């Protein structure tokens, strides 16, 4: 069984935001909601590095641990998904998440959060695969179509990799060997401890 993982290669990420717009394109995510974003540190000075960040689909996901209504579940592929019909929009997951992934639609009175939204690894939600209901609530289910997340598939420099963790690691390892540098598997120590 595959264990799906994301990996962003900081040596290759150029902050072009293709991953962000690919996600918007694929799931028609509305203005103000970003399932994926690019973070740049040391902007404008030597050492500047960029990383594309979304839900990392953690092992023993902290969001899942803190959710008071238990709306999260982990698929056989290791993808962390949630059920919007159960979600109460409390925001605990946002505080628990080490990557700032959960998003809330900014609509409604008195700052009501609305149902949480986040990256699904292009794997939809609890509704039947590729159903209209799944599409409306979670966006497209590419995994069910035999495809991988579009953000990684469209990454301009192949910095963002997505897929079975073993294959992602192999790809990255060969890249590291070729360039002879230190591996920089940003976020893996946090997300995939064991």
């Amino acid at each position, binding site marked *: 069984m595959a264990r799906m993982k994301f990996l962003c290669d900081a040596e290759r990420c150029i902050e072009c935001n293709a991953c962000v717009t690919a996600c918007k*394109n694929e799931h028609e995510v509305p203005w103000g909601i970003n399932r994926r974003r690019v973070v740049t540190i040391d*902007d*404008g*000075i030597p050492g500047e590095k960029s990383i594309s960040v979304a839900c990392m689909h953690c092992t023993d996901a902290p969001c899942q641990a803190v959710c008071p209504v238990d709306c999260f579940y982990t698929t056989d592929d290791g993808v962390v998904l949630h059920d*919007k019909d159960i979600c109460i929009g409390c925001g605990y997951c946002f505080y628990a998440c080490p990557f700032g992934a959960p998003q809330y*639609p900014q609509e409604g009175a008195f700052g009501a959060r609305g*149902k949480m*939204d986040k990256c699904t690894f292009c794997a939809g939600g609890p509704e039947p695969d590729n159903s209209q209901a799944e599409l409306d609530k979670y966006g497209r289910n590419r995994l069910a179509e035999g495809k991988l997340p579009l953000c990684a598939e469209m990454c301009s420099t192949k910095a963002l990799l997505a897929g079975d963790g073993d294959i992602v690691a192999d790809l990255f390892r060969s890249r590291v060997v*070729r360039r002879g540098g230190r591996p920089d598997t940003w976020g893996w120590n946090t997300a995939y401890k064991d």
Partner: protein
Amino acid sequence: MSLLPTAMINKADAAQRRQHSYDEGEITKKRSVCTHCSVGCGVVAEVQNGVWIGQEPSFDHPFNLGSHCAKGASVREHGHGDKRLKYPMKKVAGEWQRISWDQAIDEIGDQMLAIRESAGPDSVYWLGSAKFNNEQAYLFRKFAAFWGSNNVDHQARICHSTTVAGVANTWGFGAMTNSYNDIHNSKCIFIIGANPAEAHPVSLQHILRGKERGGKVIVVDPRFSRTAAHADHYIRIRPGADIPFVWGMIWHMFQNGWEDEQFINQRVYGMDEIRAEVAKWTPDEVERVTGVKEADVFQAAKTMYEHKPGTVVWCMGITQHTVGNSNTRALCILQLVLGNMGVSGGGTNIFRGHDNVQGATDFGVTSNSLPGYYGLSQDAWEHWARVWDVDYNWIASQFDQASYEELNGSPVSPMFTNGITVSRWIDGVLEDPENITQKDILRAMVLWGHAPNSQTRGPEMKAAMEKLDLLVIVDPFPTVSAVMNDRQDNVYLLPAATQFETYGSLTSSNRSVQWREQIMAPLFESLPDHNIIYRFAEKFGFADQLCKHIAVNDGEPLIEDITREYNRGMWACGYTGQTPERLKLQLANLHTFNKTTLKAEGGPCDGEFYGLPWPCWGTAEMKHPGTHILYDTSIPVAEGGSPFRARFGVEREGQNLLAEGSWTAGSEIEDGYPEFTSDMLKELGWWNDLTAEEKAEAEGKNWKTDLSGGIQRVAIKHGCAPYGNAKARAIVWQFPDPVPIHREPLYTPRRDLVAEYPTYEDRRNFYRLPTRYGSIQAQDFSQEFPLIMTSGRLVEYEGGGEETRSNPWLAELQQDMFIEINPADANNAGIRDGRQVWVEGPEGGAVKVMAMVTPRVERGVVFMPFHFGGHYQGEDLKDKYPEGTAPYVRGESCNVVFTYGYDSVTAMQETKVSLCRVRPA
């Protein structure tokens, strides 16, 4: 109830259902090419019931291997088109009114014909576009010729015209010599005046692949750009000091004997004069002028010498200067010194801008040439009259019959003189008619696929727009042209379709010609550009001549017939072998092409390079594979090899201009030779290799004008290049500066350098207009305007930005126009990060923008992106757009503040160095 993701989206007019649907209608896949930059990334569109419902990665595509940047990953939004111009409109008494196409063409046509009658054909300006596909670009240039004017131009003038002029005059063709993919083989990647991480993001895939294979990346730029963040060695340079920097590098090369003697002796003319100039650029003087320390210059030179082959990449940071043509030549010379030309991993990889700016340039949408770089000579006109099968005298009769200029002492028709450039069209309106070398000023302006905010001198442009009799905008969007002026009447907006709503070929930066399929029907009432051209031709009464050999179906000239027509005439740069059939076959077999060499390995295109990169010699029957790497003598011409072109004669001042001891593999002439003519074939005893039909056509012709292709075929059969085998020239004796020399920008803060390195003298007539240099530089603006101002691109937007700022997926990512300013300058001026500031320029323009305080720019330098528009000097112009068409994000155009200044050969605008001051708003 669904809260996300669709709940907050409004329904589009265009598409009934925007989301993917899994259960209704067959989904077909269409292959297109991204319309946002010159890399030429393949796009796979999923279409259902005529609606573009999905975008998939094009993994097979040799250029992008499925990848996109933010813009490319968002092109499906074109299928929504919420903010598009939906039908023809006309401004009457300050209000936009919907009109029909018939009414629009009739009214515009009648006015133009009246202007033609009173002021002559040169008073209508046909500004075309790098957004045209090749067929439309070709048809547009032909259309302008039949209208009877050379007042036609497009974006190449303001992006790479200085490259085209400088590079073509160095070794033959003014284009990228290698390819993005070939950078995999570079051991050194020297990037100067370019920020491909933002402007050509997918090129970074290839650059980083080269880097990971051991290539060193050097970035020279005034800003620590996103590209610089990936460099092994970043060098900060003062804007406008490129030539001294390059000469400084070559100084070390000559000093240490790092030049490639054999290459120079065999294949370069004029290096001694370069040596004399370079000798003046000692490390101290280089540091004084450029601000770069000797150690950095030396290290860059040493790295390039030690890591060969190396490639040089440049963009607008090099081209958009008063000395742009000299800048480009200096970089060519750098590669000639190192012998880095004509080799895989080497070359001058000049990244073009728009998706088809290379093609539009090749097809002569310029005021100084007919298609194929034939120029505007009588020979050129006669050649094309033959291809078009129309009477030369009829074409001549369409032009103004008077003369306003002299050539070699005798009066010359406007048919043969360079037209006004897009960079200066405003002067064509505002200048005293006495000073313009044509009958009258410009009275009608057609902006066809061209953003006005990408051109400098905004306030004067506004005045020019208001002075015109007639303003016509043809575009998928209203553009800033519709709102930046205060005209109340006589502005027409004609909705053009995007390239996703039609089909045809385009030429990417590396000269590869790609075929696009149509993804969807034109949205709303928009029409493809070639349909609109045809409608105007009908109105003007020359539609039958325009499409004499082009089928017209329901008002649409047949794209394939247009391709076949230019295949019959584009001999001079080898656009003759790329038939629609060959291009479509490649499109169906993308996966067979090697992703580094671009060569098909097996399959139906075996041995061809992807896109049959021009020159693709001879007729299609010759099966020439295209030329992946220009000037590569290691392979035969028949397989894509070539020498430097014999374009500048055979001898000068007793010195041989032809190659010596160097020839392409398999050449039967084992030395330099001039370009092929029928007489030369006879002298060589090769005349009888021609067929009887070829002989009949080729008699008295040369490789460029023989429509049979026989001369090219026979030359190549004997292993020779049709255009000859010569040396590249390091000095261009026809240019104002034969040897590239440093000249301070017109608006320079370095007054101490002006006397030593002055600009040119003012000129009386340059592309029909008086042009100022010295009279501006003589004034010291640096006291009042102490900051150097430069401009550039952002990854999310393209060009004037109307299209991309109307795309919500992109617009959300960059919502504010800004200026980058160093913390020290900000603190001195009392400016805080994120606050509004006024940026004021020496010619009176001012913009209100957000401050971005960052060390990305050094002290004394500020940077602004040029994609914004829709604000003017502090005012939001949203209400001036036709209803529902205002882009999501609007902002000030930096070109309102940018100033006068034009390259001395091509009239390229200076947008990389000016002066300004910044104060809190």
